[in-house]
């Protein structure tokens, strides 16, 4: 393919604008867009796609374009698909099955009648105030929307969201660079390369107030400025790195962006490359994300074909190219110095800072590292201006933040919200509250480095400072909701087992300290804790926080410190009363079967006995069952499988 000029690129954009979103620039009467992220695929979106394809072929509907896009955000209602008839607002369908999609094909695509009972909403999501970024978002006025279906931006899950990093969510095919270009893609890159000086780019980013979305929240503009002005060792090169080693369990926004909108990251990095003055960049992607690796590699190939990467980009004389580096399964490589070591092919072991990577990074050269979400924000800031971006969010934290809302919550998924939104709004308005009418207990943010924020702080406006204040941190944006059935001691133990397992083992406090803390916590959950344990835990936590070598080690005690701060009572129940209030710590549980419920409601269904791991359950069909406590290994499978709540846990 010939390299493009700027004019040719604009041409592609203009052509694609007229066509339906995700239409790859081709005209069609209708477009069906199946959302095929990792979550969607797991939920069965691929089967939906296959059925659709077969049906379309069978009916020879050549004027219907079948396409796919990445993650649509609302994981709990996958599989999802969007149907757009030319001239009408698109309709998003959720919780699809093969039967449902056939019906939709029949009624909506062929018949032109929206199937309101399956529809989630119609229209588009909000992308930050003005619709300018929605290049062709279709009808904006309610009149053009379909009356039988709620507006998508009025659907509770979407209502309070503002999409900047996820601006192309559900709208483009990640495998199509034209789709991305149609939605103002590479506009920022052209601006940066043709109309802006490096200083102007850095000033714009600094004015926008963008801070690193990877956790610590270092101002991006200042970081770029540091790298720009760092004297390269022996005048050697500088490097640009995208940190896609999203290791925090419970966070997956970076995976989603890389899989669903890889060009936004590439474009952000082109802008960054111009700003700091480099020709070489790396995208470091976690080993557990094979689809992301594939998507980014493909996107880089397309960008090279179009002349958007490589030598003399778009004829501007600027050179920049990218290379994907795969991680190999080490959480610690999310730490920047360890990540750089890993790119160099060495042991992913953090080293002391200073010197910071901005001074001495890859191969001793000044290196700028930002995470995926940060890079994805950059093109939007350049095209729409720092002022627009700075108008969103709070005094110290500008713009939006993507959170992955998971755990004990009704609407699980990715949410992008303006900074300053309260936890309550996220949990209840967007998340739709706790399933099963259980009581909300806490939200864990920031992954293993963060902490648990209790119910009492639910009106906390979320930004970098307030989360730190509450003992947690922004982290990469994992938000795990916990209800009354979650044991906070178990959660603390879980995170410690995580950090202990992922500790690289270099420094004493992290290697030995997390192990010691884990031993103590395990003891407590097994009923072997003593009151002295809490003192030692706190001493260890303080020691690790004070003396561990890297950021991951220093923050490892946070889950314990916050749970001790807000849920000390639960620890004491485990230690003094040998009781787990949430019935999670199985060694402290006693499982019994209520004979009446078993017989009356379940008619002795026998499921528990068949599933029992240790043959501890006696009874026959149509009889009340019983558990032999001497044989019970407390695996909890009986309680899990019983459909009649006859297994009691105490």
């Amino acid at each position, binding site marked *: 393919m010939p390299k493009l000029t700027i004019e040719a690129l604009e041409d592609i954009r203009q052509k694609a604008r007229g066509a339906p979103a995700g239409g790859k620039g081709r005209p069609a009467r209708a477009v069906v867009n199946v959302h095929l992220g990792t979550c969607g695929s797991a939920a069965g979106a691929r089967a939906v796609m296959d059925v659709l394809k077969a049906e379309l072929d069978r009916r020879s509907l050549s004027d219907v374009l079948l396409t796919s896009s990445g993650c649509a955000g609302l994981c709990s209602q996958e599989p999802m698909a969007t149907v757009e008839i030319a001239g009408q607002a698109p309709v998003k369908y959720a919780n699809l099955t093969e039967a449902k999609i056939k019906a939709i094909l029949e009624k909506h695509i062929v018949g032109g009648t929206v199937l309101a009972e399956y529809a989630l909403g119609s229209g588009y999501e909000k992308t930050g105030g003005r619709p300018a970024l929605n290049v062709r978002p279709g009808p904006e006025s309610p009149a053009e929307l379909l009356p039988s279906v709620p507006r998508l931006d009025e659907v509770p899950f979407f209502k309070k969201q503002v999409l900047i990093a996820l601006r192309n969510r559900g709208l483009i095919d990640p495998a199509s660079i034209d789709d991305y270009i149609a939605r103002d893609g590479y506009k920022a890159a052209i601006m940066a390369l043709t109309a802006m000086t490096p200083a102007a780019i850095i000033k714009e980013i600094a004015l926008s107030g963008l801070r690193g979305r990877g956790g610590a929240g270092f101002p991006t503009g200042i970081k770029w400025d540091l790298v720009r002005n760092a004297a390269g060792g022996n005048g050697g090169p500088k490097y640009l790195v995208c940190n896609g080693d999203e290791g925090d369990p419970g966070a997956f926004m970076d995976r989603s962006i890389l899989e669903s909108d890889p060009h936004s990251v590439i474009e952000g990095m082109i802008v960054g490359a111009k700003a700091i003055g480099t020709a070489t960049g790396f995208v470091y992607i976690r080993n557990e994300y094979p689809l992301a690796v594939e998507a980014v590699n493909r996107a880089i190939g397309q960008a090279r074909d179009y002349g958007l990467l490589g030598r003399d980009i778009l004829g501007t004389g600027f050179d920049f190219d990218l290379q994907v580096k795969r991680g190999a399964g080490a959480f610690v490589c999310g730490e920047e110095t360890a990540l750089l070591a890993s790119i160099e092919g060495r042991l992913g072991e953090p*080293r002391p800072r200073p010197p910071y990577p901005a001074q001495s990074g890859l191969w001793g050269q000044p290196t700028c590292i930002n995470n995926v979400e940060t890079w994805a924000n950059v093109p939007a800031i350049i095209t729409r201006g720092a002022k627009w971006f700075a108008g969103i969010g709070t005094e110290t934290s500008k713009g939006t933040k993507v959170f992955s809302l998971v755990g004990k919550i009704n609407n699980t998924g990715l949410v992008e919200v303006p900074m300053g939104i309260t936890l309550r709004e996220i949990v209840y308005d967007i998340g739709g509250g706790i399933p099963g009418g259980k009581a909300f207990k806490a939200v864990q943010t920031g992954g293993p480095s963060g902490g648990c924020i209790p119910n009492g702080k639910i009106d906390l406006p979320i930004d970098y400072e307030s989360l730190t204040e509450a003992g947690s941190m922004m982290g990469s944006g994992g938000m795990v909701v916990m209800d009354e059935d979650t044991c906070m001691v178990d959660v603390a133990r879980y995170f410690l087992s995580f950090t202990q397992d992922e500790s690289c*083992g*270099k420094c*004493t406090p992290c290697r030995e300290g997390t192990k010691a803390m884990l031993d103590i916590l395990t003891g407590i959950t097994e009923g072997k804790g003593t009151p002295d344990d809490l003192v030692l835990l706190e*001493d260890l936590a303080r020691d690790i926080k004070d*003396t561990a070598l890297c950021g991951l080690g220093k923050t490892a005690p946070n889950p314990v410190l916050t749970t001790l701060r807000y849920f000390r009572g639960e620890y004491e129940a485990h230690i003094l009363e040998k009781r787990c209030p949430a019935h999670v710590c199985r060694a402290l549980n006693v499982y019994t079967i209520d004979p009446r419920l078993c017989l009356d409601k379940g008619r002795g269904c026998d499921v528990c006995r068949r599933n029992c791991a240790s043959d501890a359950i006696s009874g026959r069909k149509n009889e009340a069952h019983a558990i032999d406590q001497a044989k019970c290994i407390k695996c909890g499978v009986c309680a899990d499988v019983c459909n009649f709540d006859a297994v009691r846990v105490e």
Partner: protein
Amino acid sequence: MVQLTIDGKPVEVEEGATILQAAKKAGVAIPTLCYHPLIEPYAACRVCEVEVAFRGKRDLQTSCNTKAQAGMEIWTDSERVLETRRLNVEMLLARAPAAEPLREIAKDLGVETTRFPVKDPNEKCILCGLCVRACEQIVGASAISFVDRGSERRVSTPFGEESEACIGCTACAHFCPTGAITVEDKSGRQVIHDEMFLGPATAIRVPIRQAVPMIPFIDKSACIHFKTGECKVCAKVCDRAAVNFEQEDEVKEVEVGSIILASGFKTFDPRRIPAYGYGRYPNILTAMEFERMVNASGPTGGKVLKTDGASPQSVGIIHCVGSRDENYHPYCSRVCCMYSLKFAHLLKEKTGAAIYDFYIDMRCFGKGYEEFYHRLLEEGTKFVRGRVSEISTLALTDKEEGKLVIRVEDTLLGVVRRIPVDMAILAVGLEPDADHNHVAKTFNISCSQDTFFLERHPKLAPSSSFTDGVFLAGTCQGPKDIPDTVAQAGAAAAEALALADLGKVELEPTTAVIDEELCSACRICVGLCPFTAITVDSEKGAAVVNDALCKGCGTCVAACPSGASYQRHFRDEQIFAEIEGIFLV
């Protein structure tokens, strides 16, 4: 220069110095474990943490790698520092309870025991990584590395097998602060005694204590730098920048008037007498090895130890090993009796062991020697007259179990005895050095029957050789002890000086002369000249006679096929004229 305060004391250090270096300058001690001045700081043990107040922030920093900056206020023993240090040390104690330096630091901090579970009470490794870093950064071999991660982390060679990359430099063990790495001698030889015999442990050393000039040299065969290109530790620590890796051995030509040969001897290799078991059984030492062992700067620090580290209870000293023996050397080595007596004395003094001294004749010829022998007799050394026939480990009785059994015919008692001892010392004899013949040829010197250099006359010219201007001193001429050597060397020096003092050399009047016109440079004379006085000057294309060397023997004159060589004052014409004259009378 950077000014800061440490524990309230103002300190000034160079730009770029670390807090640890600044503290050292201020005389403030900070404990360290993973730090070594020759290796890049690693900041892993977190024991050297200090509290730093700087630019409005006050937190803990590792002093080994944090650069000292102007205006820093540092506390090395605040409560916060001590608390975290204690806890870190306590955690390390659970990992490596047997690590001595760690225990010392713990003791200083008042940490007696650890509250954390101890996995292995004998563990010494604290995972400081000094060995790994030394092997990589200093040695450049990278034979060992960390494997696994987190609390499973450990140091290992690849696959836990013997590493092919290991050059056996033992730097890892040297840098290990806790003795967790031991060096094993794989060749199956005696560890203490071999290490001792391997000579100096370092590749950089002075040849001998009395060397002139007293300048160390680098033994390239042992030097890590010459194996891997790395290390250069000696250059790093030498503040006079005197180490030079480029220096090569060089051959220097020096013009001299006379030469004194003092090329010494070597000791007899007792492996040649298999019956003595040297090299096969442990605790059999040669005299040189024992000498090294009792040396205070030796590998055992002067202690007499068996291979198992214990002190011997009984020691046998065997005289005349290789000397006075028709099978090896018929001559007497002259020094063995006396050094054996010295050993017996030292052994008695150091170990109190029972000493058996096996001799053929006690040759105490020098001044005060006989008196020394009598002193030994009084000290209780057991002298057994007779040649030892065998040393073995074959035990015939319980008493002999685990001992070296020395079999000897006691010629005074007339019985064959078996004497069990813990250690045997072989009084090896002296023999000419290995390159003895080469030296003899070079200097045109003859050797006597015993193969030592032959002196011109045993009584009248004991320090001269048959080559004028070449003198002999010391054991190259025959076994002798130090006083004799010194005396002979003095005589040789005096003779050489006498020549120098004269300022001229009397030449033989009848030296050979080559007629360049006639000489065809056929080199027949060069090979024939017994005094190596003839060389061929390639420019002239003719043979040349060195007048100082020529003794006027006339061999070349007789052999010269073209008649180019003639003897001064004895040319053919002159002789013919003389003969004619005689006939005329």
